[in-house]
Every structure is written in C-alpha cells, then in structure tokens.
C-alpha cells in the first residue's frame, strides 16, 4: 500500500472514531464590502468563498481551490495501541486581514505551510491573488502536548 493509501485508511479510521472536526469562520472585509467564509475540516481540507455584500444583491465573487495537506502525527492514540500514523491536517482555521496592506492570511498546512497570503486588488473591481505560501515555523509542532 502506498503512502496515499495508508493515509486514506488512517483518515477513515480517524473519522470513524468520531474525532473529525469542522469549523466555519466568517470575516467581514469592511473597507471592501466583502465577506470571507472559510470552511475547515480539520483532517481533510479547507476552502473559502468571498461574497460581495456591498449591496442587497449579495453575490459570490470568488471560490478558492480546495487546500489539502499537512501532516499530523497521531501520537496521542499510540498510548492506547490504537493507531499511529500521519493524517492530512489543515487545522481549525483562522482569518486575519490587514486593511493597510490589503492582505489576508488563511489556511495553514500543518508542518508544511504557515499560511496562505492573499492580496486584494485596490481597484473597485474585485481581484484577489495568492501572494505566497509562508514557511511553516519549525517551532510550531502542530501537536497537542497533552495527548
């Protein structure tokens, strides 16, 4: 079985143990009349959509790619001889935005990407572009020390 297959099985077992978590985050970008809706499935993927809420006719103006990746070692379950392995993890998610620089950071990939940094265009017409993927800081283990 290749690594992808192993990860699939591990994810399946992990999910069947009812340990999966889903989080939604919503953040207004007030100076642009936009709303960012971010969906994180902890051990699967993350994606976000952006809505133009500047008028009564709310419309979706952007749908991101689906981001998958990261590696989370299930050492907490090893103690119970239940499972040991690595699953894809995108974290619980957060949105942060700087109005001065028109940049937004979202979606870390555990042990891989610290966050994805997007830039909004300064024109009235909606524009967004991925500036770069920040480096994962090695001091962030991503793991829960209590497990």
């Amino acid at each position, binding site marked *: 079985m290749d690594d992808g297959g192993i990860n699939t099985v591990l994810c399946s077992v992990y999910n069947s143990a009812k340990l999966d978590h889903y*989080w939604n985050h919503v953040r207004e970008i007030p100076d642009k009349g936009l709303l960012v809706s971010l969906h994180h499935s902890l051990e699967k993927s993350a994606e976000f959509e952006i809505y133009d809420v500047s008028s009564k006719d709310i419309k979706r103006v952007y749908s991101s790619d689906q981001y998958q990746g990261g590696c989370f070692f299930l050492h907490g379950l090893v103690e119970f001889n239940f499972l040991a392995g690595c699953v894809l993890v995108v974290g619980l998610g957060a949105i942060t935005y700087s109005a*001065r620089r028109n940049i937004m950071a979202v979606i870390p990939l555990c042990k891989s990407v*610290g966050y994805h940094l997007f830039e909004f265009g300064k024109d009235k017409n909606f524009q967004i572009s991925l500036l770069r993927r920040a480096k994962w800081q090695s*001091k962030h*283990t*991503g793991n829960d*020390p209590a497990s």
Partner: protein
Amino acid sequence: MDLNPEGSLMVSLDWAGMCLFSNVEDDRLLKDVALGVGGGNYHSSIGKDKTFLPLKRPNITVQVESYRRTNNVHQISLE
C-alpha cells in the same frame, strides 16, 4: 493567527501553546514565547501534567504593545 494593523507582523499560536512572532515579508522568526496554554479552539492543556481544560475559546490573548520597524518585538503582555 493574527496580523498586526500594519500587516508586517504575524502572530501565531499552536495547540502546544507556542506563540510565534514572524516577519510577514520573509517569514523570519522574530520571537517565540511558550505560553503553556494551548491555542487550539477545541481543547488545551497546562504544562506537561496532561490536565485537559475544555476551552472552546482560550481566554488568553497576546498583545503586541509595539513593533518597531527594526523588527524587534520588545514588549509583550498577556491578558
């Protein structure tokens, strides 16, 4: 994670309670602070005694009092 208003500094907190301050431009690590309280929204822990604290939202925030253009984080307070 959170950006400072200028968009030059990223503050990130992981489940292990490690709070990192990094430069947005080049990801350079400026300062790390071990808070001892995890930043995960689901649960947290204190120290190494494996005591679980069910925290939906950790009642801890990190404020950067000031951030010089020299990239020195020189004062941090916890609330």
